Each structure stands twice: as structure tokens, then as C-alpha cells.
């Protein structure tokens, strides 16, 4: 990380004297909340550097379109390309499309991350941490609540076609598989497509069965907030149920501040966005760069949420 920062400093110094650097970026979805924060991180950071211009494209979750966007960037002669890949199993195709133009994968880990050419790099957080941190903290909280004799709950999945959703749900099952947390059982798991309003309806449907439950784990904050809104609408006491999510969005932190939300995980969207720009500029300068730059996840609970209120 430190190394990247130094490079960034150098890069920005050089950029002021050298010709303008053009960076082309393609993001898998413009309407995703978290990716939007990351995108803004890229834009603001690029704006703060002299002589760096950033062109942003929306891949609308379409891999073929994204590959074409990369080729278009190459054809128009940009200095570097940043890719938030639509499909993590298509790394090789993106790598090839970029040819000799420096390229940075951001946020999503391409499958060829270990065979990247020297002109390419990867900046992200390690997805395995997120779901695990959240579920494990819920497990601890349930124990602290004296429910180690058995706790039942629900799991809300993100879009079933999304790698992060699949990974985060797998993390939850892995945590529940541990001796320490195997008192937890999942009554049912369903997708709410990352969305708050779908999560409200799903949670209300679950509650209509009248089955008692102790926790709700969601793949992201939006679904966790939807679940909380539904539980509050049904008059549930939020102290009696543990709710965990991932993202530490501002909506989530303010919900946590009102005492309804228990656990989330901070993924540094802004940091990943800015880091990808810095790494791209370092590659343009031909500097030696760490090919895998990991920005860690941080567990967020009411105890430390104050540190994150002004981030994501």
C-alpha cells in the first residue's frame, strides 16, 4: 500500500510536467451503490491530479460490451485502462484485449490474477474476508446473548449470478460449519437481488409463517436494511434479533446508529477507486508495481462505527 502511495506521489509529480495522461475505465454497473462510491473515488482522485483525464464507461453487466470498450480504449490510444470486470472468469479475454496498454483490474479478482503480464495489476479487497467477518461476529453476538444452545435465522442472497454474492453466502455456511458456531441453523435462504424493497417483501413473507428466529444475515447492507424495516413494521423488538450485512454504506451506519443494525463490514470503495488510478499511473510510468494490491475489509459494529460515518 505504502509503495503504491509513493508511486502515486511520484506519478502525480511527473504528470504535472509530462503530457496529459488519459485513462479509460469500464465499470460493470453504474447503478450499483457500492461501485458508484468506488467510481466517484476514481473521478475525484483523477480530478485532484494535474493532467490526468478519466473517461468512464458503463458495461451494464455485459461482458461482450466490456471487452469492446477495452478495445475501443486501445484504439483511441489511452495511456492506461481500468477494468471493474463483469465476469471474473473472463480475465484472460480482457488481458488480451488490452494488448500492451497498461491495465488495472479493480475490485473484482479476475481468474488470471496470478498470470498477469508486467503491464497489468489488480487492486481490491479479498472477498472471502467480508462474509466471514460478518457471520462470525453475529455468531459471537448470539453467544453473548446466551443463545449458544441453538439459534435459528434467515440468509438473504444477492444476485445469484454474482460472484461476491455466492462467495459471501458460502462464507456464512463455512462459519456455521465451525464447531464454535454450529449452534446456528438457517431456516431458509432466498435471493432479494441486493435490493432493499425486495428484501422488505421477502422478510415479511418469512415472518408471515410465524416461525421464531434469532438472526438475519444478508449479503449486503441494502438487503439488511430492508429486513430491518420489515421487522420494525411488524413490531419486532430489534434487540432480540441479530442482523448482519456487508458494505458499511452511510444508510447502514445511520441505521446502526439508531440501534437497529448490529454488524456490517467496511470495504473501502473510495480507497479502491483511488488506488486503481494510482496503480494505473505507476504502470504508465513503467514503474515496478505490486501486481496484487489488497485493501483490507474492516469489521464495523456500534463500537467503532463513528470511524466510518464519513467514508463510503
Amino acid at each position, binding site marked *: 500500500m505504502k509503495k503504491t502511495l509513493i508511486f502515486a506521489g511520484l506519478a502525480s509529480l511527473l504528470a504535472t510536467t509530462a503530457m496529459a495522461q488519459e485513462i479509460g475505465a469500464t465499470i460493470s454497473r453504474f447503478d450499483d451503490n457500492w461501485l458508484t462510491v468506488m467510481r466517484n473515488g476514481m473521478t475525484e482522485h483523477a480530478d485532484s491530479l494535474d493532467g490526468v483525464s478519466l473517461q468512464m464507461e458503463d458495461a451494464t453487466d455485459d461482458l461482450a460490451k466490456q471487452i469492446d470498450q477495452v478495445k475501443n480504449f486501445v484504439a483511441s490510444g489511452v495511456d492506461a485502462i481500468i477494468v471493474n470486470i463483469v465476469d471474473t472468469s473472463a480475465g484472460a479475454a480482457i488481458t488480451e484485449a488490452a494488448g500492451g496498454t497498461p491495465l488495472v483490474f479493480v475490485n473484482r479478482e479476475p481468474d488470471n490474477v496470478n498470470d498477469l503480464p508486467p503491464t497489468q495489476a489488480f487492486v481490491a479487497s479479498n472477498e472471502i474476508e467480508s462474509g466471514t467477518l460478518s457471520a462470525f461476529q453475529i455468531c459471537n453476538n448470539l453467544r453473548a446473548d446466551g443463545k449458544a444452545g441453538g439459534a435459528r435465522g434467515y440468509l438473504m442472497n444477492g444476485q445469484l449470478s454474482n460472484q461476491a454474492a455466492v462467495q459471501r453466502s458460502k462464507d456464512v455456511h463455512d462459519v456455521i460449519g465451525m464447531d464454535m458456531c454450529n449452534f446456528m441453523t438457517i431456516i431458509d435462504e432466498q435471493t432479494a437481488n441486493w435490493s432493499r424493497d425486495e428484501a422488505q417483501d421477502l422478510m*415479511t413473507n418469512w415472518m408471515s409463517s410465524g416461525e421464531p428466529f434469532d438472526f438475519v444475515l444478508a449479503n449486503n447492507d441494502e438487503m439488511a436494511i430492508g429486513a430491518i424495516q420489515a421487522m420494525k413494521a411488524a413490531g419486532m423488538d430489534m434487540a432480540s434479533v441479530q442482523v448482519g450485512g456487508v458494505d458499511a454504506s452511510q*444508510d447502514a451506519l445511520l441505521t446502526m*446508529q439508531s440501534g437497529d443494525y448490529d454488524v456490517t463490514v467496511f470495504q473501502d470503495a473510495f480507497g479502491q477507486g483511488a488506488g486503481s488510478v494510482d496503480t494505473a499511473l505507476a504502470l504508465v510510468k513503467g514503474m515496478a508495481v505490486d501486481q496484487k494490491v489488497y485493501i483490507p475489509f474492516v469489521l464495523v459494529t456500534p463500537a467503532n462505527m463513528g470511524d466510518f*460515518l464519513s467514508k463510503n
Partner: protein
Amino acid sequence: MTDTSHGVGGLTFDKTKRSWPNEMNIFFALLIIVIIFEILGQILPYMNGQSFLFDTRGRFDTIFNEARLQIIILQVAIIGIIALGVTQVIITAGIDLSSGPLVAATAMIAMSFAQTELVNGNPNPKAIFGLWAMDLPVIVPVVVGLLFGAMIGAINGTFVAYFRIPPFIATLGMFLICRGIALWWSAGRPVSFPTESYKFIGSGMMPVVWFLSLAVIFHIILRYTVYGKHTYAIGSNEEAARMSGINVRRHKVMVYMIASMLAAFAGVVLSAKASTAQAGMGEFYELFAIAMAVIGGISLTGGRGSIIGTVLGAMVLGVIRSGFTFVKLDGSYQLMAMGGIIIAAVILDQYRQRNRA
């Protein structure tokens, strides 16, 4: 399938030939689906004999599981509001594909005028405008939303009626434009933290109250007013309607405007319910709204369909969604089942029309 209604100016003629109203069939289908889930609750080993619609745990005063009855209709109420408008558009032999993205765009725009200045004592982190737009009376965002809807509807209607662009194409274009507006409005950022009075629009069972009141209003309008008669007449035979002195173009613009205003209102209710507006909201809403009308027995070639049918169509989708969650089957199966039911509904309807003729 349309031969009975073509050239006869709408529903009235059909009525005499009917053994019972078409809506009864949908109602029976609804009952059958409920009974299937009731039986599955009894026979599936992991369900422990739970009931789908009845209260087996003594939680409610009545014999019904009121919580489930509520969510069945609550989860389709917002798309149902859109479906009320789409029904009218389809009766004129048109189609409106722009309603889903319009929900998102309206949610973003209306919510920007409904934000609070302070959240738990912190300044609103999602503020779109300055302090002047904070804590405005609830009427402001609602009117802004409806005006935006009216504008989009007027454009749709003008392209369809005056420029003779096929409705599918005109509203497909508007579909993309509205999704673009939703994304552009706040550069993809969600718009959150509305005032309490705005939240009230979507709180509790309010979406259902809106849906059913609007359904009653538009049922009466379509059945008993000149507007309704003209709408059916245009769909049955546009040329005949023109000959008989109906201002077809102006009427079509009005129908598209009403449909878009209903979709815009759905966007207001949705954002109030979720207390947030996001550019990705309302995905597939246009298709589910059309599906409700189709299950409700509407004819895509125009001239035939009713608000009661569409409300029942909405109920069918609500029962299926709750039913699949009840038997703990995942969303992927729900989509397959809904697809099957939509096709089955049309096949049954065509069969019935042919037999009658």
C-alpha cells in the same frame, strides 16, 4: 380470439353471450393455486403440516393467517398501480414498456424534494439539493413526481398518436431514456432519508390502500364514463372510432399520460416504502405489470380487458410469490412458475374465446 369484440364497439355486446364474466375464471384459478399451496403445506415432509392461509399457531383473532394475507397483496400493490395504467394502454391496442424505468427516475427525482436536513442529528449524507429543498411539505415531491410522469406520458402519447411510431418502439425508447435519467440524476448515488410525512405514503399497508382505491376509481371510469367508452372503442376498431367522431389522437395521448402518471405515483410509493430511491429500482416492473393484465384476461390486440381482471391477475402473482417462499423454494423456481402461468392464462383464454364464437 378477438373476432367477438372487433367492430362492435367494446364490451357491451360480448356481455350477452357470456355464461359468466371472464373475471370469474381468474378467480377460480386463484383459488386453485391457493389450494395447491395449502395441500403442499400438508404433504411436504419439511413443512410440518403448516397452513398457507389459515392461522395454525393461534397468532390472530380470525381463523386466517392475517400476516400472509397482507403480504400477498402488499408485495404486488406497487406494480399493481402501474398495471392499472398499462391495462388502459393495452385496451387501446397499445403497450407501455417505459413504466419500470419511469418508476426509478420518478423515485430519484421525487425523493430529492422529500429529504430531511438531519438524520439522527447528522447532516443528511445523501442530500441532493441545498437546504432550501430540505423538509418540504409532502405535497411538493408528490406533485413533482406526478408532473414528471405526465410529461413522459405526453411524450409517449404524442409519438404514438401523432408521429405514428409503434407503441412498442416509442415506449422502448422511453424505457432507455428514463433509465438514463435515473442514473444521471445523482450520478448513480442513492437518494435517501426522506421526511416522516413522505415515508407515510409507503408505510404499512398504505401501498395497498393506494392500489385498491385507484383500482376502484379506474374501474368506475372505464365502465361508466365517456373516457372509458372511447378507450374500448379505439381498441376495438380505431377507424370506426375515428369515423364516429372520437378524437382518437388526443384520447391516446391522454391514456398514455394517465398510465405514466400512475407509474410515476408507483415510484413515489416505492421510494417512500423503502425510504430510499435508487437508479436500479423498478427492474422488470413493466413486464410484471403487463403480466398482471395478461393473466387478468386482457387482449393485446385491444378492445378487451378490465381493471377487475388486472387486480385478480396481480393477486395471482402475489399468491405465487408468497406460496413459493412458504414452501421454501427459491426465486428461480418462482420465475419459471410465473412464466408458465402467464402462458397458460393466455392459452386458456384463447380456447374460451374460440368456443364462445
